């Protein structure tokens, strides 16, 4: 766990010079512990103290970057076991496997399609993992070059053959591929390659004990950016291993496990792969490598990733801006809802399927749902009037009738008073919108 203020205070000069901007050393120590200031603000601290504190204050899991420029993926730097304790920070990277014996150009063409838009968010598939099935180093190198040139994916190079690995890495080193993997029999040579080309290195053990040993040896050689693979491939054991790695890093500050992790699916069937990958995504994998590259399989997985990595303290909001659904006319109805993204997109989906062109006006309720916003006074006559005015609804439609969510029918009177518009009470649930629209506007 992070250092306490007192632990930091003990290492400070305790002279209360105020040079750090805080009145006392204790106040400064508390601020550092809370992450509001940093040790280098103290000009009097000894190098020795800095080193001691620096090592202990390092994040429990190192941030490792794979890729460069617009392909760069950030992995690790997590601090929690449960998202409800704070949040998860760096979404699991999804990698699609390509063999150097595949039609690489066709695979890349398909890979470009693996980006999705839903509920106003954009999801992308982050990485390509290239295997050296051909056993031919020039083929491996050519495929690596094609991936770097022809996609926005960060690259994982997978080969047991050191010569093949070197020829590919040498060609694409600038794009910082992840080298997979250093094992007990080849770790010295693999580490040397990673250091020569300054690339991150995956470490594969046979079980956690061997993994820890290997990491120690490799870090002694000076390699800093690592990604861990326990070597397990059975669902239950991978879950156990990933959980242990995360727990040991976060709760025990066990340095050998203070790195991001990589997991591979073992299934051949695409649907089974996604369910297995979902388990690893839920429980702590930083990269998951899959064989499937079909849109309908990756969209659900990447949606779960998006859900899991949201900040539980901060509801996702949409802009408080009127949205026209369909070919709207001045006669089109105007639906009022809130700017909590889940609420908004459920309403939008229903309005869309009602096939009645309409405006949706999401009132700014700080991202709360209809009933919560009403209870907090954030969905009220005044806020609705403000949204109508800011969006100039009076010039967009030729009527003055707004549709209020059924759950807040009680706001009808005050809304009419504050806005000067007539209120029509809509359905309580968004699922009633189609029926409501057909009965009233078709």
């Amino acid at each position: 766990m992070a250092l306490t203020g007192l632990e930091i205070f003990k290492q400070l000069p305790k002279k209360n010079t105020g040079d750090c901007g805080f009145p006392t050393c204790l106040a400064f120590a508390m601020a550092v512990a809370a992450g509001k200031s940093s040790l280098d603000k103290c000009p009097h601290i000894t190098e020795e103290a800095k080193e001691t504190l620096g090592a202990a204050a390092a994040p429990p899991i190192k941030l490792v970057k794979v890729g460069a420029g617009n392909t760069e993926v950030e992995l690790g730097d997590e601090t929690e076991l449960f998202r409800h304790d704070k949040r998860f920070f760096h979404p699991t990277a999804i990698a699609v496997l390509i063999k150097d014996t595949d039609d690489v150009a066709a695979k890349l063409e398909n890979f470009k399609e693996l980006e999705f838009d839903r509920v106003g968010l954009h999801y992308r598939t982050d990485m390509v993992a290239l295997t050296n099935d051909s056993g031919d180093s020039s083929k491996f190198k050519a495929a690596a070059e094609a991936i770097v040139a022809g996609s926005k994916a960060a690259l994982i190079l997978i080969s047991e053959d050191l010569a093949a690995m070197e020829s590919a890495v040498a060609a694409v080193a600038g794009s910082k591929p992840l080298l997979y993997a250093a094992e007990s029999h080849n770790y010295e040579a693999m580490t040397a390659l990673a250091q020569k080309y300054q690339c991150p290195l995956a470490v594969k053990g046979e079980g956690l004990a061997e993994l820890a040993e290997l990491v120690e040896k490799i870090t002694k050689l000076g390699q800093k950016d690592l990604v861990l693979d326990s070597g397990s491939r059975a669902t239950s054991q991978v879950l156990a291993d990933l959980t242990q790695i995360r727990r040991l890093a976060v709760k025990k500050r066990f340095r050998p496990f203070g790195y991001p992790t990589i997991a591979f699916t073992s299934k051949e069937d695409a649907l089974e792969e996604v369910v297995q990958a979902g388990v690893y995504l839920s429980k702590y994998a930083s990269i998951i490598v899959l064989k499937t590259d079909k849109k309908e399989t990756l969209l659900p997985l990447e949606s779960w990733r998006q859900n899991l990595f949201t900040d539980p303290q901060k509801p996702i909001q949409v802009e408080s801006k009127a949205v026209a659904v369909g070919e709207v006319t001045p006669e089109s109805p105007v639906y009022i809802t809130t700017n909590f993204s889940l609420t908004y997109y459920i309403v939008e989906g229903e309005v869309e399927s009602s096939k009645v062109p309409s405006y949706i006006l999401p009132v700014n309720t700080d991202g709360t749902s209809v009933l919560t916003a009403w209870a907090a006074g954030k969905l009220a006559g005044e806020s609705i009037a403000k949204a109508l005015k800011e969006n100039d609804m009076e010039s967009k439609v030729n009527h003055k009738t707004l549709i209020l969510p059924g759950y807040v029918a009680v706001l009808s009177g005050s809304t009419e008073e504050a806005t000067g518009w007539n209120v029509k009470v809509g359905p309580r649930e968004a699922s009633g919108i189609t029926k409501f629209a057909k009965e009233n506007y078709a």
Partner: protein
Amino acid sequence: MAFNAVKDKYRSKVGEVVLGATKEQGGTRDYTITIGGEAALPFLHFEGEIPNRPVVAMEIWDVAPTDWNDCFKPFYADVWNDPVAWAKKCVDEYGAELIVLHLKGADPDVKDATPEECAKVVKDVLAAVGCPLVVTGCGKPEKDNLVLPLVAEAAAGENLLLGVAEQENYKSLTAACMVHKHNIIAQSPIDINICKQLNILITEMNLPANRIVIDPTIAALGYGVEYGYSIMERARNGALQGDTMLGMPMIGNVGYEVWRTKEANASSDDFPGWGEQENRGILWEATTAMALLQAGMNVVVMRHPKASNLIKQNIEELMVKTSFDE
């Protein structure tokens, strides 16, 4: 460097609930199902015993659904006019271990089936299949308070799981479960405090805690599944730390929530960027169930036979024991 596995120490474990009753136990079921009882976080066998595997239940209705996606027709269109045939098909062809009979037809806006008609459907389904049964009302409290007590009486001895009880409406169902010896689903709106409060209220009426199953209310993938996920993780941690009023097994209506979403239903033609519809829908359902199982759900109620098979297999694999002891 040697590593020592971190095994969290828990003071307690999840309570066990038994569903169904065999002949010897006063019912007519071929077998019973025990849920709960785990002394560890989901599937972490290395830190505690997980005596009972989570269960995939299949959902059937007492009326033919009118708004289910066309992809269900090949599986259910020949039986969904008849809950008895539907239940049999789920058991015989799709390997269902547990059936959830949703009395949708009791809804005054659907068929307004009488309590007597509903009780008869329950009796008929019980006569046709040997698996334990879950029965849920139409969701309108005024009507369910008439229907469910009669169902409880008609199926006395069968040890059903009946639902749902809510904070504003739990007394008549609790009383019916007390008198006729059934289990109860206690549903709270994604709120851990209400969840706990409702369990306290029900046990204060003297229905024992080992007859309660929590429905924390879940949403589908992409529609707030992470809220339920975190509530469940918190509840399960609480249960293992000894909070008995959060210590019951949990159930969730996965199929129902998933198959209302646009992502499960939108045709491949309308949304080419989302890929093929049926497999997308199957995975939307399976991914939702997978996530909830990772948060501690004990019964996932599912709809698509292929999604249900995927999850059964996933559970099978996750029940393989793990240990870090030499």
